[in-house]
């Protein structure tokens, strides 16, 4: 079984400093995989490489076993089967409806079908009544829900979440986490989540990869890592980070 996403010997430097020093990992279909680690270690970088936004300096990113070069038309086709939700919702200056419809417009979907799918996605995140309002005038939590709907409506094979609840209050965090879980249940997407919040990782992830000093110190089922890690550095990291 070829995993939908895999990294092979991936290295990446920024400004002379080597951030990722050889990452090897495979992400199974339909699982929620969390990448955790200290701030600045390269979690977001890894996500961007997986979404083909940047290219690794060496090594390969494979999607269903195939590797493409970033910037090629094949890369764009691949990226269109994935979607990302970032820390800042970055809504467009348009209505909620138009924001959620954006990805569908890009793919040339029939307008009537767009209507149905968009309203469906809005209902899923509880923003149906706000469909005609300007997205950039809503609260942070509501905008992040829009960002979620905008990505979920595309039914991507892989969904990337980059600190997607970092700026939200607990109520909205809970709501979006529920949405992620339900989305995975119903749409079957593979989900890769980057978070500095280990409690969130514990709540959501099936498997976890701990990124320390540019390498994956440990990869395994969430329970195993959080409760019985075999690696001293990982144990030290976990105990330090889970103080709050």
């Amino acid at each position, binding site marked *: 079984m070829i995993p939908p996403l895999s990294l092979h010997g991936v290295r990446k430097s920024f400004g002379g400093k080597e951030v990722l020093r050889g990452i090897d990992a495979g992400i199974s279909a339909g699982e929620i995989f969390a990448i955790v680690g200290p701030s600045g270690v390269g979690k977001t970088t890894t996500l961007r490489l997986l979404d083909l936004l940047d290219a690794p300096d060496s090594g390969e990113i494979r999607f269903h076993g195939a590797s493409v070069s970033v910037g090629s038309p094949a890369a764009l086709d691949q*990226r269109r089967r994935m*979607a990302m939700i970032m820390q*800042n919702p*970055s809504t467009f200056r*348009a209505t909620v409806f138009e924001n959620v419809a954006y990805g569908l417009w890009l793919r040339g979907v029939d307008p009537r079908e767009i209507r149905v799918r968009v309203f469906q996605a809005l209902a899923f995140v509880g923003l149906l009544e706000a469909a005609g309002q300007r997205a950039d005038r809503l609260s942070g939590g509501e905008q992040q829900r829009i960002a979620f709907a*905008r990505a979920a409506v595309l039914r991507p094979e892989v969904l990337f979440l980059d600190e997607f609840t970092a700026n939200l209050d607990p109520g909205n965090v809970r709501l979006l986490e529920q949405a992620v879980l339900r989305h995975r249940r119903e749409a079957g997407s593979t989900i890769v989540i980057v978070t500095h919040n280990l409690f969130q990782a514990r709540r959501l992830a099936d498997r976890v990869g701990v990124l320390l000093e540019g390498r994956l110190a440990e990869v395994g089922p969430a329970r195993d890592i959080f409760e019985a890690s075999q690696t001293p550095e990982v144990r030290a990291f976990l105990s330090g980070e889970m103080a709050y």
Partner: protein
Amino acid sequence: MSVDAEVLQIVGLSLLVAGTSTLIGFVVGAPLGALIALKEFPGRNFVRTLAFTFYGFPPVLAGLLVFLLLSRDGPLGALGWLFTPIGMVIAQTFLVIPIVMGLTISAVMAVERRLHETARTLGADDRQWRATALHEARLGVVTAVMVGFGRAVSEVGAVLIVGGNIRGHTRVLTTAIVLETSQAHYLEATVLGVILFGIAFAVFAVLQRLQGRGVL
């Protein structure tokens, strides 16, 4: 021709000439501006600087150049467009395009990088992102168009030289004001000036309304 009918004809021609030039300026200048703002290509900085320089291109100079172009002696003389409204539109379009382009470039460059990333993750290619960025910057683009129109409707050098201020055919508000002033008909000139100001004011009032309505 009675005075009122003549004034109406002058106003109509002003709006038609300036309006057509602005329309063409938008159709050409906005996408071009977005392209220059977003796409990497060799000589890009040079082109950008050039666009901004042509902002302040003297209308009289544009008029002179188009005059030499359209004169029978000139390269496009066979068309016979000198002293006609078409010639005036050509001259004004050359003035409006840099304005729309320059202001569009500024507006589009102000669109956040983060938004580009977001669009990419949702599957946008470069062309689709350019359209998106233009849409994000639409307030700036509409302003660019309004400023372009303001420039076109109130300039006098280009339309005077290329049009010839021919009564009933190429006389617009600005050239009529010049004529009336040269003949010391100051009252008539002022009235025409007030009408001209009224037009410019109306255009920007519409812009305000659009902004308020949240369309932009």
